Every structure is written in C-alpha cells, then in structure tokens.
C-alpha cells in the first residue's frame, strides 16, 4: 500500500471538504423544514396538520437514494420549463443543489418528529405565562419555546446528523465529486479498490467521530443549569 495514495490524496481531501459542505448545507435546509413541519403538525389548523403529516410520512417511506435520483433527474423537465419562462436556456439543478435538496428533505422529515416531541414536552404553563405577559404568538415561540426546545431536541438531531453525514455518500451516484466519487475515480486509475474504499471508510469514520465529539460538547453546553438525572 502506498502512503501517498498514488497522488490521489489531495483529491480525496477535497472530496472530504465537499462532503462536509454538502452535509452542512443539507443540515440548514433540513432544520428549517423540520421546524416548519413540526409547527404545521402541532398547529390547530387541519390543513396544515395534514400537510405536515403527509410530508413526514411520504418522505420517510421512500429511500434516500430514490429521492436523490428523483430530484436530480425528475426536475430536469420542470426546471427547463421554468428557465424557458425567465429566458434562461438549459436551467437545471446542479448535482450539489439536488443533493442538498434531497438530503435536506429527508433530514427535515425526521427532524419534524424530533421537534414535535420537543415542543410537546414544554409545559403549557410557559406559553400561558408568555400570553399573560402580553407577548405575541411568534415572540412566545422564538423567545420562550425555541430556546428550551433546543436542549430537548439536540440528542435526536445529533443522531439525524450522523445519518445525514453517511447519506451524503449517495450523492456520488449523481456524480457530485465528494469522498466516494473521488474514491471511485482513484479506483479506476489504480485498480486498487480495497485501498481506496477503505480510505473513504476511514474518512467517514473520522467525520462521524469528530461530530460525536462536537455534539457531546453542544449537549453539555445546552444542558448547563439542568441537573443530570442520576443514572
């Protein structure tokens, strides 16, 4: 085994950077979608409840890989039509954008449930206290509910982020040049599949291990002032 990976080391490192960018972008989109989904599911409006429920059921019932393919290939015609209206020929989603949307969608569907659980665990009295103080509903949500929700939702979101990190490998199927794709390219050049896929595996292990450390730190920070239950 070659230590410099036949000169493919820098490419793999660049792929790792791409993977991280992809994961973080999808995380941002997923958090927004999850929050909206949870708000819709817990609202008193029937139509919104239905939308939230359908979103989380539909997305969670279909494989992530199929979402990646559906969004990348399935939007070609629609995007072209939109491009036609605005006079931009050949408008299409890049592999990166399709990956962010697909993974964000999947993260959001699971995050909907995590956020919903966290919202429900906040005592009703807190909301009533906010109302009694004359705060508006959006302000109650932002100033009262959200900061408390964060602490409860964090472990669940952490798990989802680990899953998201590993699902980024799926985007290599549509040609985005992240870790897996670079590993595949290196394999074609060197005919050493085991070496390069093992290197890719170790890179993913490093990323998951690092995010585990980061999450533990975030959880410790978020639970400052809350006594740990003795166990």
């Amino acid at each position, binding site marked *: 085994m070659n230590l410099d990976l036949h000169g493919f080391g820098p490419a793999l490192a660049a792929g790792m950077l791409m993977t991280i960018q992809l994961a973080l972008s999808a995380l941002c989109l997923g958090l927004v979608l999850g929050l909206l989904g949870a708000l819709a599911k817990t609202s008193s409006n029937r139509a919104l409840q239905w939308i939230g429920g359908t979103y989380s059921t*539909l997305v969670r*019932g*279909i*494989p*992530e*890989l*199929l979402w990646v*393919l*559906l969004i990348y*290939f*399935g939007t*070609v*015609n629609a995007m072209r039509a939109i491009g036609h209206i605005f006079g931009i020929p050949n408008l299409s989603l890049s592999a990166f954008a399709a990956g962010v949307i697909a993974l964000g969608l999947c993260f959001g569907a699971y995050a909907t449930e995590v956020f919903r659980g966290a919202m429900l665990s906040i005592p009703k009295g807190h909301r009533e206290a906010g109302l009694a103080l004359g705060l508006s509903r959006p302000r109650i949500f932002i100033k009262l509910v959200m900061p408390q929700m964060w602490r409860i939702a964090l472990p669940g979101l952490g798990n989802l982020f680990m899953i998201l990190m*590993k*699902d*980024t*490998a*799926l985007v*290599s*199927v549509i040609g985005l040049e992240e870790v*897996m794709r670079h*590993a*595949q390219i290196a*394999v074609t050049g060197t*005919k*050493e*599949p*085991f*070496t390069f*896929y*093992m290197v*890719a*595996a170790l890179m*993913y*292990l490093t990323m*998951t*291990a690092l995010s585990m450390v980061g999450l533990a730190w975030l959880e410790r920070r978020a639970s400052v002032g809350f006594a740990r239950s003795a166990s």
Partner: protein
Amino acid sequence: MTWEFTLKWMPKLLQGATLTLELVAIAVVAGLILAIPMGIARASRNNYVRALPYAYIFFFRGTPLLVQLFLVYYGLAQFDVITQGPLWPYLRDPFFCAALTMTLHTTAYIAEILRGAIQAVPVGEVEAARALGMSQAKAMTYIILPRAARIGLPAYSNEVILMLKASALASTVTLLDITGMARTINARTYMPEQSFFLAGLIYLTISFVLVQAFKLLERKLRVNALQGR
C-alpha cells in the same frame, strides 16, 4: 402520470420488488441471528468481552452502507487470495455481496437494539430467576431474552423499514431491485418523473404493509400489556 406507462412498466417494477424483498428478508433474519450473540456480548460486564462487538459496531455504524457495499463487491477483488480462493464464485455475485453487506450492516444496529433491550429488563426479574435456582444460561434463554425481544421489537421493526430503504443501494452494484428497475426504465423512456414516482409508490406500499404486520405481531406478543413494571 399516464396509465399506459404504468401498465407497461409496472410488471418490471414488481419483479424488482421481489428482489428487494428477498434482500431485506435475508438481511433482517440473518442479521437478527448474528446479532443475538453480539448483543449479549455487548451487554456483558466484562470489558474484554465487550470490546470486540464494540469495534464491529463502531465501524459498521460509522461508515455509509455504500462504502461497505463497494468494499465487499469491488474491494475484495484486489486480493489474489480471494480471487483464487474457494469463496470467489459467491463473492463475485452482486446479489450475494449485497445480501452479505446488508446483513453485516444491520447486525451492528440490531445488536445495539438488543443490548438496550437486555439492559432494560427489570433487575428484579433476573434476580427472581436466579433466586429460583436458574443458571445464568437458563435465565438468559427463559427470562431475559423473551423479555428483551418484546422490549426491542418496536425498535427492530424500525430497523426493518430502514433496511427496506437501504436496499435501494443494491442498484449501485448492477442489481435490478425496485430502484435499479426504475433507473433502467428511466434510461429507456427518458421519463424520470414517472419511473421514480412509481418506484416510490411501491416502497411506500411495502413499508405500509410491514408497519401493519409488525403492529399485528406486537399485539400477538402482547408487547404493550407486558411493558408495565
């Protein structure tokens, strides 16, 4: 969505569904069998007994299934020992590789579920079994494992659904499962929306049926009635 398209390609997709179901069935059954000793070892109080399953679980849960699949299907061919060995006829077969990788992958997750379930069995019940003179092995087979099976069943049903979705990766090693069929149909017809939509519909149906089946099983095993401590 045209009926013509659906009628023409649905049989192909259903054919893919049988392959998907075979893969999932092999993985979750074989995975469960392998996970039982691993889960027991993982719940052990001995550090040395715990270390090996921990390393296995750390690797399989920390890397993407796609990487594991490529390591087995493409990676093993790098070694002459394997290409000249007796197992090569199996290891060059994409179906065998996909089933093997999915089994190894899900074993790690099921072992973790099992460990949580074993540790959740009330201490009093284990002590009662020991007080009645049951040996450690006997208490394990007659008291702890049946109890842990009921505690872990909801999590296991989740894992089965996750494996159903993970089986879509089989399409990356040339297998024609539901996703693989949908990709082939897309390549032939240039109708990505319809082919992938139909495939998604089949996945939704299968997961719906599986969820209902597990609900039935939970009722039969009286999971809820036994949760009271």
